């Protein structure tokens, strides 16, 4: 019985989540976009032409080889 209740509750929650998708998605999408772009920038471009962390080369040097392999401009 308990299992059945849980299943029903989950089904209801899912149905509700689907119904409110368009509005409910927005904060998640904005979050994923911001974090994704920031990570992409730090890995691919930071401490090259521009730098978020001041005039250090720690990130650049650490991911140096990955940057070359992934095709980002380097040095």
């Amino acid at each position, binding site marked *: 019985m308990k299992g059945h209740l849980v*299943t029903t509750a989950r089904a209801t929650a*899912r149905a509700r989540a689907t119904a409110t998708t368009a509005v*409910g998605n927005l904060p998640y*999408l904005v*979050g994923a976009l911001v974090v*994704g772009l920031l*990570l992409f920038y730090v890995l691919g471009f930071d401490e090259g032409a521009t730098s978020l962390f001041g005039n250090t080369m720690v990130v650049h040097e650490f991911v*140096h080889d990955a940057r070359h*392999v992934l095709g980002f401009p380097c*040095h």
Partner: protein
Amino acid sequence: MPAKAVIPRAALAGGIGGLVAFGVARVVAEPLIGRAVDYEEGRGEAEDALAAAAGQPGHDTGAEIFSRTVQGTLGLGAGTVLAGVALGLLFAVVYTLAQPHVTWRPRVLALAVAGAGFLTVYATPFVKYPADPPAVGHEETIGDRSALYLAMLLGSVVFLVVATLVGRRLSARLGTWSATLVGGAVYVVLAGILMTVLPSLGELATNVATYGPAVGETPQPLRDAAGRIVFPGFDADLLYAFRLSSVTAQLLLWGVLGLVFGALAERATARSRDDAGSVPVSTPA
């Protein structure tokens, strides 16, 4: 699938794709990078010797922050895996937004979005500004090169959006096949125009002034005052092998991202369909 369910699965799939790319990078690309670094050091010494002979000071190469070993293992691994996660997050945004517009199964849409990512974020910029190993690329043009690469990347994304909208608009009149071909042609033409308009790296004013006209920034043979070659140009085969390894790594990253996410999404939608019982849940057919 709501964004809340898409994002963690896409980040995981991207991380796994990055891990596979790291495998290729470690085994195939890293030895090539090592040879390129050796060339760079040898050339630096030859340049210093030339400068000393001419009575000028040599270049200061600066202190190492991380050893080559760390760069080639931990740094390479962290960089590729995190890049996979970042691309997975961006993939999640496009996948979530595309869902309501197609009737494809999750795994088909997943491969389509991953293919679009590979095409716009890597392949198209690569055609104009291909990946370069260490030793290839002048330090003084890093600003120009970053801006040009970003312009190619953003242009490719915008062009694919335009091509998709054109294709969708025409599909009722021309049918899916012809409309897709027209959309593809729109993408190729727009990307081709941008590639023609943007300068190649060898055409940058700084490079022409310092090195004379050239296609790119690949080091040419080093000559002494008498014109004799004292150090060879960069090995063309090494450059080719490195670029091929870069394409392979990126192709695997996106391919694994698309396939793994597709499998996870199929499983999640099947489960929510089972859970829902008679409650209708909108899932792509």
